[in-house]
């Protein structure tokens, strides 16, 4: 691993500490997974078959080839047979987290608010902390790191988030993820609906359960400007001169609502959850909602 510049490391540490503080109010998070991604990592999700784990699964007769250390002598002493004690295979779920790092996320309408990116990263990091505490394995989608469950994995995640970022155009690039893993996408999700649909369906096709979290600035929701305004995009879009913003406000809101409705429908169709978070609201409420969505058994 290359040497990380000190400011980035300090920033990463601060980000991780903020996330830890935010998640300290919640118990460790266990992903509600009826099917766990096929990994060999030890976790808490029982696989209902013999394997390495801590929970007793069954006794069976000693067969030649079994190691003598596997013999349960107490059980064997009760009868004439020799028994071997077997535990249940318990595996960990893997959660892939993604935070939008496109330039449009680096924006806030008021100096008193955090940028959308800060908020999205905070929530992603807090979720990662909770998951790691619950024994699940977490990784950043596109971060280039293998999933991990310990503090070092968290520190690496924080470093990646605080660093130059993952870049991108507002949507994750389809990656070959293990089946049945969990996926959480946080971003402003303002890309055109067909693009989002393509990404979501490509993940859903692998059996990944996902969660969409739309992080928006209040100004993006209410369009609080008046008069003649020239709008400039943050991702190289063409400038747009609006003679009277108040005249288009209602239409803008309608359009935003339609976009959201499309997102919700899209998520529903894929069996995913969809939530909206505004940066002027406290992050706790968003985290609580995420906690519920991740830990709940999917309805229907």
């Amino acid at each position, binding site marked *: 691993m290359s040497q990380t510049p000190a400011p980035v490391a300090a920033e990463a540490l601060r980000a991780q500490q903020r996330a830890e503080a935010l998640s300290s109010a919640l118990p460790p998070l266990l992903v509600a997974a009826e099917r766990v991604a096929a990994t060999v990592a030890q976790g808490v999700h029982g696989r209902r078959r013999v394997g390495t784990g801590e929970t007793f699964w069954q006794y069976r007769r000693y067969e030649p080839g079994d190691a003598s250390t596997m013999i349960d002598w107490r059980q064997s002493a009760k009868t004439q047979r020799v028994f071997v004690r077997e535990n249940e295979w318990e595996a960990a779920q893997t959660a892939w987290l993604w935070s939008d790092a496109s330039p*449009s*996320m680096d*924006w*806030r*309408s*008021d*100096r008193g608010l955090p940028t*959308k990116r800060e908020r999205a990263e905070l929530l992603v990091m807090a979720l990662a902390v909770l998951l790691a505490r619950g024994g699940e394995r977490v990784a950043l989608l596109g971060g280039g790191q293998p999933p991990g469950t310990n503090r070092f994995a968290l520190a690496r995640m924080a470093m990646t988030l605080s660093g130059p970022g993952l870049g991108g155009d507002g949507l994750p690039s389809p990656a070959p993820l293990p089946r049945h893993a969990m996926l959480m996408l946080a971003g*402003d999700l*303002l890309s*055109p609906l067909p693009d989002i649909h393509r990404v979501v369906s490509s993940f859903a096709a692998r059996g990944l359960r996902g969660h969409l979290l739309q992080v928006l*600035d209040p*100004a*993006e929701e209410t369009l609080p*400007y008046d*008069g*003649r*305004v*020239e*709008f*400039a*995009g*943050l*991702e190289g*879009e063409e400038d*747009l*001169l*609006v*003679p*009277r913003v108040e*005249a*288009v406000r209602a*239409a*803008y809101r309608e*359009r*935003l609502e339609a*976009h959201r409705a499309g997102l919700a429908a899209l998520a529903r169709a894929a069996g995913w959850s969809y939530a909206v978070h505004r940066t002027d609201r406290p992050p706790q409420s968003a985290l609580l909602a995420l906690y519920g969505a991740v830990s709940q058994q999917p309805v229907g």
Partner: protein
Amino acid sequence: MLSLGPLAFMAPWVLAALLVLPVLWWLLRLTPPSPRVIRFPAIRLLRDLISREETPARTPWWLLLLRLVLAGIAILALAQPVLNPRTAPPGTGPLVLVVDNGWGSGRDWPARQRTLGDLLDGADRAGRPVVLVPTAAAPGGEPPGAIGPVRAGEARRLAQTLEPRPWPSDRRAALESIRKLQLQGSAYAVWLSDGLDGPEAAELAETLQRLGGAEVLAEAAGGLPRLLLPPSVEGAGLTARVLRAAPGPSEPVTVRAAGGDGRILARETAAFGEGRKDAELRLELPAELRNEVARLSIEGESTAGGTVLLDERWRRRPVGLVAGRSEGSDQPLLNDLYYLDRALSPFSEVRRGTVGDLLGRDLSVLILADVGALTDTEADRIEAWVRRGGVLVRFAGPRLAQHADRLVPARLRVGDRTLGGALSWSNPLPLAPFPEQSPFAGLPVPPDVTVARQVLAEPTLELAERTWARLSDGTPLVTAAREGEGRIVLVHTTANPDWSNLALSGLFVQMLQRVTALSAGVAEGVGSGTLEPVEVLDGLGRLIPPPSTVFPLPAREFGPDALGPRHPPGFYGTDEARRALNLTTKVTTLDMLRGLPAGVSRTGYAERGETPLQPWLLGIALALAVFDLVLALLLRGLLGGSRVRARRPATKATTAASTAAALALLALPMVLSGEARAQDPEAFASKAAGATWLGYVVTGDGALDEMTRAGLEGLSRVLNQRTAAETAGAMAVNLELDELNLFPLLYWAVSPSQPRPSDDAISRLNAYLRNGGMILFDTRDGRFGAGGGPGGDRLQELVEGLDVPALAPAPPEHVLTKSFYLLQDFPGRYAGGEVWVEAREGRINDGVTSVVVGGNDWAGAWAVDGSGRPLNAVVPGGERQREMAYRFGVNLVMYVLTGNYKADQVHVPAILERLGQ
């Protein structure tokens, strides 16, 4: 010039630009304000929404109005509007300006000059020639005459050279010169008068009117000059009379007495009674102060007539004492002159000597105590002097009783009369109340004053009226006779307690004061030679060095008649014997200008004056422009509003504009800060006086000053921790600029690079040391005294001229060793160097040394950084040495603040022990 009522435009054609305003309005309406630029992530959702409603953006009406008003004001300003324009004088010929510049015009000269300037402006605009006629003689003595006709511009230059003169106007000469004028066309005359009447006033006005038309400018009655007459001396006070030109309502007037150096010694207010033209006021002054009074002036009056210069005539009277006996010092209480001297010296200047010596100088009263017969020459000289106004006072005694000469007010019987002696039935007699005509009238007669012996006068017809005091049986005790201008007074008893206890009483002092006050003074004598001008008054009542036009004054011509352009009022003579020539000895009456012929209008000075409005209008336009800029920035969201920074090149210009506006706003306080800097000493003083600061001398060596500052801060910290002395910290003191007296202690680290303080700074340092300040000199070489280091030599160069007494090494029992801690030595960064203090304690400042000199670099040892860690290592070392250095600092500051109080304290055990026994 375009005139609209009280408003006129100097450049009316500029007003045509107002026609452009509608075009401007149309243009502004068409051009929408540039939009705010907002960066917005959800721009994708905004696309295609605008086509629904397309209303063209317009400049808001109020902004439009603001800009139109701005343009309108700018155009108006360029048209040079003038409020109350001076209308061109009527007539077609020249403008004749008669300017009174005699003494009376000094009262409000700037207003006169403004008016004159306005009149000349009017004449300039109308292209009229001007004739300028001052009415006071020029300083060279040339009589006033008309100048001109000349162009108005030329006349303005001449008018600027006019100034009020300290002598009266010569309207007669001005009148003659006006009569000689040959003028083309019908002239118009304006007389800028001083408002005072004179014999030629009406004639002058009439002549002016005949030129074509005339108007007279004069102040109203309340604004006329007032006249302060030379005061008369009454007792210890001065009685001054103030005249005003016209009787009117009651009006206060304040006269102040100033010393030769300009100090105000007394200030007295009186009031003109209603309908009265004069007011009298009395300035009560202690005799010492009265001698210092050099001038009296009416407050608020800047004329030569409102100022009276005082010379010897108003000073304490010199009194000469001559004794008949040789003055023995063995029995001073029996001396003839002892009681006279004691009685007179508080309020008079007492001289002793022989008659010849005393009369050689100016003298107002000569007292001969028991001088018998005078020689003929002496008697002649005294008699001549008395005839000129001297007062001769003689006291009787054994010698006078035997040899009375002719200089007595009444013929005396030979011998004396004894009352209550061993062979007499009678008792010593008390005094009778003083008769009405006596100068002593009203003095209380103490009953215990008795006269045991006296000389007797031969009864004559005039004896009764010559008697100023009697005994209770009617015998004259004091007789007096007029002799020419002066008086001869005889007290029929002795000036010592031999014959009477009068000399022991307070009555004696009062009587002598009255007699002295009678004397006419010393300046009456006719001198010879010439009197050089010493200082003269200018037209504004200020004393100035005599200009070259002032001539010396022959002494015999000295008097009111001499006063004129060649001899303006002022001090003449020599610096030691100055004689005051006052304008008010010549000008003694004052009347208001009246009796003007009909048809001559009379106005005041005040309501004149045109006001150019251009600067104001331009200022308003600039303010509006700044306001407009702020509004434009607000509208575009560059001030407040959106926090998103615009980074596009197109918006750079607006950013630059806003920066320029901010700079323009910043420039204003920077311009004003020049004044703020002038107030700096006050801020410094209020800061320094607000708390106890440890001062250090700024040497100019930055590192050293910083170290000294850190050292004193460290010491201050230790002081605040350990002692009751609450010091606020260290404060830099610039010897050249700052007030030193606010600091109890100055730490002066000697630096090789520090320039020698200026002489001014040295003298202020001397004053500081004399007034109880203390300087700790630190040569910082660790070797001061013992062998000497380079710092000692440098110190000597630096403080050359400083009044430092002889120094000696601090003795082991010096207060510095026990003012707080008990110390054996005084280490700093270096240990072992000697500390030198004043060698002779107890001389001044209660024995507290004013300088402490050493070379141990104490500040270096005290210096701490922000977190309290020491900055320097101490040599040879050890925290104990640093602690000792701090203890020395504590002792030093305690010594500075409490003086030698600890030196007294050490005796307490011994005193208590002794008391116990």
